[in-house]
């Protein structure tokens, strides 16, 4: 605070407002999208997840090309070799290079995980979206909503992995059948979430206000419903992908995974499991670590997204 004696006399004149207003510093404001992105990058775990995932995807794409072997090239003399300069991840009992196999396995596992999760997303969004949108729209709307929700409830009570296992027992295991089995019951969680979110948004006063102001339905859906639901869908996706990858590796453990010669991380881990005590640790280690790291990455990213999309979160 300035001492009175130091305050110049001539300042005691009316304020010139035009000059004054420009002094008001505005805090840097951020839109919802930008703020969310900024929040994610502040979350160290999530950033780690992104980097890991990026590395895994890149290596799955280009890894096999880095060594001069093919995934099915057998060489019985080179069986069960530990890590070396020629075989970065060692070899398996048929002399196949583990590095190449691991990354090709990665392609399969990631493919299965992503595709199954995406199919679940589509089904879940359609069912959940329809249900949420129809609720409250007259008698037929409510009927559709109730019917779909009964269906979802019943399916929810049935243990997911159990159904998948049973399906795989009757269908012959293979890439397509695995994806089908995983998708058939996996959509239920997404449907519930989507419906719940739509109902919540619909109930918000700003939607009511928009409706009363005469905003066309399509615009309401586009500007209000979708941005709010998109967040939940994306977060759920980052959790369903690792769920699918995990389920696939679980199936492999039971012998219901992809069949040789195609290999996924799950089948490779299962093979490696059998020989763990005889010292060839690398056969379980690499696929196992890859599964773990991928799931870790997705979970970390999902957590970060969840925190970031939460408009309430982070107290000032």
């Amino acid at each position, binding site marked *: 605070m300035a001492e009175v004696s130091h305050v110049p006399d001539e300042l005691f004149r009316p304020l010139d407002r035009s000059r004054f207003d420009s002094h008001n510093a505005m805090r840097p404001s951020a839109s919802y999208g930008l703020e969310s992105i900024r929040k994610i990058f502040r979350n*160290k*775990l999530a950033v780690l997840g992104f980097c890991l995932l990026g590395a895994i995807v890149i290596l799955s794409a280009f890894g096999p090309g880095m060594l001069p072997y093919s995934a099915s090239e057998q060489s019985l003399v080179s069986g069960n070799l530990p890590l070396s300069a020629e075989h970065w991840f060692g070899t398996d009992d048929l002399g196949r290079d583990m590095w190449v196999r691991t990354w090709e396995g990665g392609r399969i596992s990631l493919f299965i995980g992503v595709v199954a999760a995406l199919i679940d997303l589509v089904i879940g969004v359609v069912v959940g979206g329809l249900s949420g949108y129809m609720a409250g729209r007259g008698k037929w709307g409510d009927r559709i909503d109730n019917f779909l929700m009964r269906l979802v*409830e*019943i399916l929810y*009570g*049935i*243990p*997911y*992995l*159990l*159904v998948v*296992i*049973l*399906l795989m*027992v*009757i269908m012959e295991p293979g890439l397509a059948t695995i994806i089908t089995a995983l998708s058939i019951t996996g959509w239920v969680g997404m449907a519930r979430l989507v419906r719940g979110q739509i109902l919540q948004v619909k109930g918000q006063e700003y939607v009511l206000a928009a409706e009363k102001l005469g905003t066309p339905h399509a615009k309401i859906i586009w500007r209000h419903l979708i941005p709010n639901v998109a967040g939940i869908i994306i977060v759920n996706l980052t959790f369903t992908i*690792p769920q699918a990858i*995990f389920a696939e*590796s*679980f199936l492999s*453990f*039971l*012998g*219901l995974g992809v069949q040789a010669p195609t290999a996924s991380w799950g089948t490779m*881990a*299962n093979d490696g*499991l059998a020989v*763990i*005590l005889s010292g060839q640790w690398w056969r*379980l280690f690499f696929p*196992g670590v890859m*599964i*773990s*790291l*991928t*799931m*870790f990455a997705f*979970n*970390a990213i999902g*957590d970060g997204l969840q925190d970031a999309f939460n408009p309430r979160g982070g*107290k000032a």
Partner: protein
Amino acid sequence: MWKYMLKRSLSMVITLWLIATLTFVIMHLIPGDPFATEARMLPEEVVQNMRERYHLDKPLIEQYVQYMNGLIHLDLGPSIQQKSQDVTTLIQSGFPASAVLGLQSLVIALTGGIALGVVAALFHNRLMDYAAMFFAILGISVPSFILAPLLIKYFAVKWELLPVASWDGWEYSVLPSVALAIGPLAIIARFVRTSMIEVFDQDYMSTAEAKGLSTFHIVFRHGIRNAILPVITFIGPLFANLITGTFVVEKIFAIPGIGKYFVESIFNRDYPVILGTSVFYSAVLILTLFVTDILYRFVDPRIKLANGGE
């Protein structure tokens, strides 16, 4: 309250019936004859006898009725592979081991998970929080069939701290229970943390602080009560997780439980066993869901009293 319980019991029965039917349908969709190999090796009459014994010669509807009938009488039919036993006996013999394993793991997961979650919430956004969450995500990411062999390799073989490959005393159950508990523990920890953080934000926590109560008192008497309630709703799905976990753990640790038989029956395509155990598991799960739902309604005073008048 009673009206609600009745409603739930009914829906429980319906779901069970649906699952039984579903599994029946699935099993009979399998192309081919379960006795194909036998048919090639044995005379026709013998095979026909076997078919009769397993009711495979009757029309589907009759098989279905017989199956349902059997279920109500808790008779799940004979096993195809283990010719001397029937499925019910199999389940009964495996039940104690699986139950012990499951309950121990549940206890470990609940205590460990709640403790970890509370600690993480207390140190929100500081090092302890990040460390705890790192371990939690790790626990979720590493599949049990990778964790289990690692545990065996180090704790049992290399360092010889705990015994495995048998089920003769409580020491044998330590490693398997831990292996089984890690995934659920991590899930619970994350959940409790989120719940706790939300609770900390609530106004009544400020009131408690303004009363001059000790931090311990505030966290444990005011905070945890409210944070834990949602965990109860969680126990149902957690149980499902636990059950599928037992398949892996029992197989790897050679524990004579239902999970081991289930896994073997899948390898052997022993359909009655697969069917029977699936129905059994579903029943256990649905019962658990039912119980936790009712429990939650009793524990949360807001709901309990709302329904109390009924």
